[in-house]
């Protein structure tokens, strides 16, 4: 279980997160929705150890997480960053190798096999530079690369950003599939409809504060959420 308590994060004078608290039970999908600039990336980067909080705690199974990003990965938490950030001049296969940087070679070969089974297109393009892949393929690669560390918890930062609707659906199916295989998911998204649909529990982040929380279904029915994040349409779809 991952717990975020009383998190205060600031960049210089700009406070990006105010007293943020959330709980991520093992095996679940937790979504955090919020518009651009709400503080979603800051939240994930703080959990990942890239950004140091001014105050507050991030606990994994009751213990404080290390405050350096490479140690967070060793603790079992991996981030799939916003904008995919594949290593564009490295081959697809080398990107996966980077994902398994901390893993023993024998184990990583097995995981690589699994990732290639999950994404046959990546196997076909394994020798190709990652920068030449389409946006959707790059997102698959970014997720596959994250899986290479065999994480307990995967943090996904706007995985649907800039993708065609059909691909977005594929990405969300995939997130559910990864979750079913036992990986806890923290998903931050502007695409509220999809993010709430897959979530066991969700939070709404506005200007750095958690303003609402509830199960995905509850939030999808909430009139405020509907007005602000679901375009005022019926949320049943």
């Amino acid at each position, binding site marked *: 279980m991952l717990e975020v308590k009383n998190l205060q994060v600031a960049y210089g004078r700009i406070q990006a997160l105010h007293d943020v608290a959330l709980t991520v039970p093992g095996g679940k999908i937790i979504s955090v929705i919020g518009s651009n600039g709400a503080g979603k990336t800051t939240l994930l980067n703080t959990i*990942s150890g*890239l950004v140091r909080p001014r105050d507050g705690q991030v606990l994994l199974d009751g213990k404080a997480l290390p405050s*350096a*990003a*490479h140690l967070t*990965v*060793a603790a079992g938490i*991996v*981030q799939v*960053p916003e904008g995919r*950030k594949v*290593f*564009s*001049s*490295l081959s697809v296969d*080398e990107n996966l*190798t*980077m*994902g398994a*940087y*901390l893993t023993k070679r024998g184990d990583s070969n097995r995981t690589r096999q699994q990732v290639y089974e999950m994404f046959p297109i990546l196997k076909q393009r394994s020798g190709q530079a990652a920068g030449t892949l389409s946006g959707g393929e790059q997102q698959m690669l970014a997720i596959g*690369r994250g899986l290479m*560390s065999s994480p307990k918890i995967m943090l996904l930062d706007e995985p649907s950003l800039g993708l065609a609707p059909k691909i977005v659906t594929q990405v969300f199916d995939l997130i559910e599939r990864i979750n079913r295989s036992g990986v806890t998911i923290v998903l931050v998204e502007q695409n509220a409809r999809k993010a709430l649909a897959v979530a066991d529990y969700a939070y709404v982040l506005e200007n750095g504060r958690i303003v609402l929380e509830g199960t995905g279904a509850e939030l999808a029915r909430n009139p405020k959420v509907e007005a602000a994040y679901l375009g005022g349409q019926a949320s049943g779809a």
Partner: protein
Amino acid sequence: MGDSFWSVVVQQIVNGVSLGAVYALIAVGFALVFNVLKFSNFSHGGVLAISAYVGYFAALKLHLSLIPVLLVGTLAGGLIACGVEFVAFRSIRKKRGQLVYFFVTSVTMLMLLEQVLVIFFGASFFTYPRLISLTTLTIGQVSISVLYVLMMVASAIAFGVLAWALRFTRVGIAIRAASNDLITTNLMGVNVDFIVLATFFVSGLLAGLSGVLLGMSYTLYPQIGQLVVKGFIASVLGGLGSLVGAALGALALGVVEVLLISVMGSGLSPAVIFAMMVIFLLVRPQGFAGVSFQEKA
């Protein structure tokens, strides 16, 4: 004039490629650090200079032969570069300092390392003991000194090992990943402090090797490190961001330089080279290799 004219040209090209091979060592070492930290590291020249002196004293006092001298100088370069990273650049990185601080620090380190040499060895010139035969090999009408052959062979071996390491070792792949994106590399569980240090080490090895080779072919003086400018020019010509581009840029620079010197003498040719570089960059700002500046901003 026909035949002898062309044999002179071919001769100069061979000389230029030999010189360019050493410039390529400088340029690639320079580009390695640029790619990861995005600043022009002129302290590379200081590392080169000290390594050249280390090689000189290893030959003179320890009576080492050619290969050990090359290895000692190369290793010295790697270690000194690590020291420079640790002392000068690490704290700027921790404070997330702007690129201009890195740049200014690197120039300061170049001057500091030069001054260290002046303090210990004075401003005088030294000549390496003879480590290789001074004879020349003649192929057809082209002759090439054994030293030039050494320069080409040593560079080729160094680049072979480097290419292998960057492609097939875990740290090598991580250095390439870090050249794409240091933060995301960190998110893969890579300790970036270590990768930056490793990058300086590899870059310093190349500086060390080029230092010994330059020391053997010229005389040794504290300002020998200013030859780092050749590596800088070559890596800009090649396209900042590309190691292969930097090496090609260096070969081109070596050839052009030798040809120009033979035509107009060594007084005028540096000015012409700078002018050519400016024109080239106006026409093709992304350099030979076509990596755009924006991508690396």
